[in-house]
């Protein structure tokens, strides 16, 4: 059932002060997890915002299930697409429950109050992100990792079939990184499409089907993860020598550093 949920056609993202670079032409199918890798400032977040229709591309079009995204209303987009941002502002106090319930916003009309069903969806999302029992806590009192899981739980309540997440593993300990990435895989297994901006090559190697490498000069290449995960390409991408290890048939990349030989003490 290959069906394209999100497509970039002749897309050039708009990064100020940079030439156009290569046009992006890719299609994310149902059931796929895509990873975007690139060094700081390569435009990963800009690409994610452009795919979400939150930022105008320099040229080209983003198609959401076949419709040009700029022709859709924000509400129609939000009913299909959930976005997890890297940065969040919490200028005003809100409880965890109030916060996670906002994910139901696209599905409620102006006069609707959240129903028992919405509450159930929100509770399930909190439970999945191991935040049960924190419903009445103020968001400002949560740790960075808990806030990150709350943001992901909020996106889960949207029950979207397209996920865009900017560094979903930020602030998370190893257990929760694995929990979040497994949840993303589950989303794909249910027939949804997932695109993640990642800075951890090993998470990308383990959980993504397709990878898009974004270079600081605007060039990009993409393809099957097994093909894209070559040490020379990644070393060029990050300008960092890498050591490749094998663990249970899985490649693991670690940065190679000069051994410190001086008198460090």
């Amino acid at each position, binding site marked *: 059932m290959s069906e394209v949920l999100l497509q970039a056609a002749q897309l050039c993202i708009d990064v100020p002060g940079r030439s156009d670079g290569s046009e992006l032409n890719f299609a994310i199918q149902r059931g796929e997890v895509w990873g975007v890798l690139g060094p700081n400032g390569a435009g990963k977040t800009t690409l994610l915002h452009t795919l979400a229709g939150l930022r105008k591309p320099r040229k080209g079009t983003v198609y959401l299930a076949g419709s040009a995204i700029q022709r859709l209303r924000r509400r129609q987009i939000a009913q299909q697409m959930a976005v997890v941002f890297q940065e969040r502002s*919490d200028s005003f106090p809100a409880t965890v429950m109030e916060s996670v319930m906002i994910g139901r916003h696209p599905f409620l009309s102006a006069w609707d109050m959240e129903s028992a069903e919405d509450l159930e969806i929100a509770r399930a999302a909190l439970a999945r992100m191991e935040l049960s029992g924190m419903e009445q806590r103020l968001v400002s009192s949560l740790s960075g990792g808990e806030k990150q899981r709350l943001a992901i739980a909020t996106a889960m309540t949207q029950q979207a079939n397209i996920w865009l997440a900017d560094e979903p593993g930020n602030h998370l300990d190893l257990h929760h990184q694995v929990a979040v990435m497994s949840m993303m895989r589950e989303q794909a297994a249910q027939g949804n499409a997932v695109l993640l901006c990642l800075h951890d090559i090993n998470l990308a190697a383990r959980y993504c089907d397709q990878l898009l490498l974004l270079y600081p000069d605007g060039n990009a290449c993409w393809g099957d993860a097994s093909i894209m995960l070559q040490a020379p390409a990644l070393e060029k991408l990050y300008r960092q020598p890498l050591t490749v290890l094998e663990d249970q048939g899985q490649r693991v990349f670690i940065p190679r550093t000069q051994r410190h030989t001086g008198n460090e003490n």
Partner: protein
Amino acid sequence: MAAASYHTPRLLPALAVLSLGALLAVALSVSTGSVAISTAELWAVLQGEGEPLHRTLIFDLRLPRSLAAFATGGLLAVAGALMQVLLRNPLADPYVLGLSGGAAVGALSAMLLGLGSAAVSGSAFIGAIVSAITVFGLAHGTGSWTPTRLLLTGVVIAAGWGAVVTFMLAIAPTESLPGMLFWLMGDLAYARSPWPALTTLLALSLLLLPLGRSLNAMARGPLQAAALGVAVKPMEWSIYIAASLLTALAVTTAGSIGFVGLVVPHMLRLILGNDQRLILPACALAGGALLTLADTLARTIIAPEQLPVGVITALLGVPTFLLLLYRSR
């Protein structure tokens, strides 16, 4: 104080309590004055009976002023809550974009020219609207505006208005100075009919009610709101226009009364949480009740002399707010 619990079940009880409080505030306000009116007498008057003196006092003098105070307080508190969400800045108040300065220049010009109170109100309204349009136009510039840009433009324009106001006070003849100073501190003696302010408060509160959840999304920032399906630009425009209109009407009714618009939304957020579906109607009720009580005190503490109501709102509000803030840790 415990963190606010999940809101939906508390919406109606909270609004019921606040409505009762608002009703009591108005009742207290119309019973208090040079001639005290007891509860029994007030009830009789409301039944269409009672002494003619009491009827005149209540319906012709005290009730219009109480309702004007209520409407003004409600308008300011709702406008403040809206501005705080629009600018995502808890320090924002209805005057942060220079509306009170513009209104003050309008009102004081009319006073300097020796015009009547209708002209003072009218030119205050025009001044406020001119200021709102100026700030928004300038902040917009060539690109799109950001909260910071809007805020900075507002602060600078307000400073400009402030200089003009000081200049007018300096050249004003001595006999018109008290009137001008009272207007600047907020004074309900200028209030004419309460109905324009009251109907606007009611109408806009009803119009804003269905936008409450979208405003909740807006409070998380424009990107997050857009990703949740809010049409951010039209929403920002609506908030800006609504808040400007509310503030302009409030300053037109009673001069620039400080404090209500800044502090009432915060007090309510500390107690009720930050769901705009609850906070906006609660602001209308609590802001109205606070200003009604403040005005009652302002005209009775040193009767027959009257204090500017802005003095009382601050004297009442500062300790209450600090207490709530202190307990919320």
